[in-house]
């Protein structure tokens, strides 16, 4: 289990190899990468700044990761989330889950992203031709997280 909150970019290949490591019991690894889009709500986005709550962010991510390990038989996992100013096509977030079988890895990865989006204290400020604006939380994200609540 590992959580990192960082300004720097990450290398998916390096992280994948670190998660799978030398564990011959891992039969499935699922990775998700979230990227900065150049369009939001019909407007061009030239950049995005991610603010977070240092301290609470790491705590929340570790809690969410521990919950995934409680619910699924995961061998290993990693969550990396960036902050600071990012440009379209930049990587924002990486989640990798590894397990004996694919179903646990797929489900845990999906769960981690859904919970992260509604629980981890990050906020996005988009730069558009009309100026900067804070991204509003989406009802769809709350609904996606809620589907795991019966666990």
């Amino acid at each position: 289990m590992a959580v990192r909150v960082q300004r720097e970019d990450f290398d998916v290949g390096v992280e994948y190899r670190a998660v799978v490591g030398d564990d011959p019991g891992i039969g499935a690894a699922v990775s998700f990468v979230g990227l900065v889009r150049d369009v939001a709500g019909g407007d061009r986005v030239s950049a995005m700044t991610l603010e977070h709550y240092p301290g609470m962010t790491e705590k929340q991510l570790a809690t969410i990761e521990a919950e995934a390990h409680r619910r699924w038989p995961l061998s290993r996992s990693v969550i990396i989330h960036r902050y600071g100013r990012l440009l379209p096509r930049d990587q924002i977030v990486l989640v990798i889950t590894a397990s004996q079988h694919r179903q646990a890895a797929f489900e845990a990865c999906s769960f981690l992203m859904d919970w992260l989006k509604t629980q981890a204290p990050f906020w996005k400020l988009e730069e558009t031709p009309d100026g900067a604006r804070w991204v509003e939380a989406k009802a769809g994200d709350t609904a996606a997280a809620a589907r795991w609540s019966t666990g």
Partner: protein
Amino acid sequence: MRLLYFAWLRSKIGVSEEEVDPPASVATVGDLVAWLKTRGPHYADALAHDSVVKVAVNQTYAKRDAPLARGDEVALFPPVTGG
């Protein structure tokens, strides 16, 4: 008590953090939000729709009826939008 503000709450209130000494009647998170609203137009504006405002006490999400102690770190912020 140390208060932290994030995202548009920080922009509207105008500071990212401050030390406050609320009156003894402020016993819960809900009391604190109500008291903050009385501290000036920036606060009243930022907290006008206070039902959307999330609160964390000592870096853990807290409901409006959660009790507060003098040394707490209390953060107020909008719904999160990471990922």
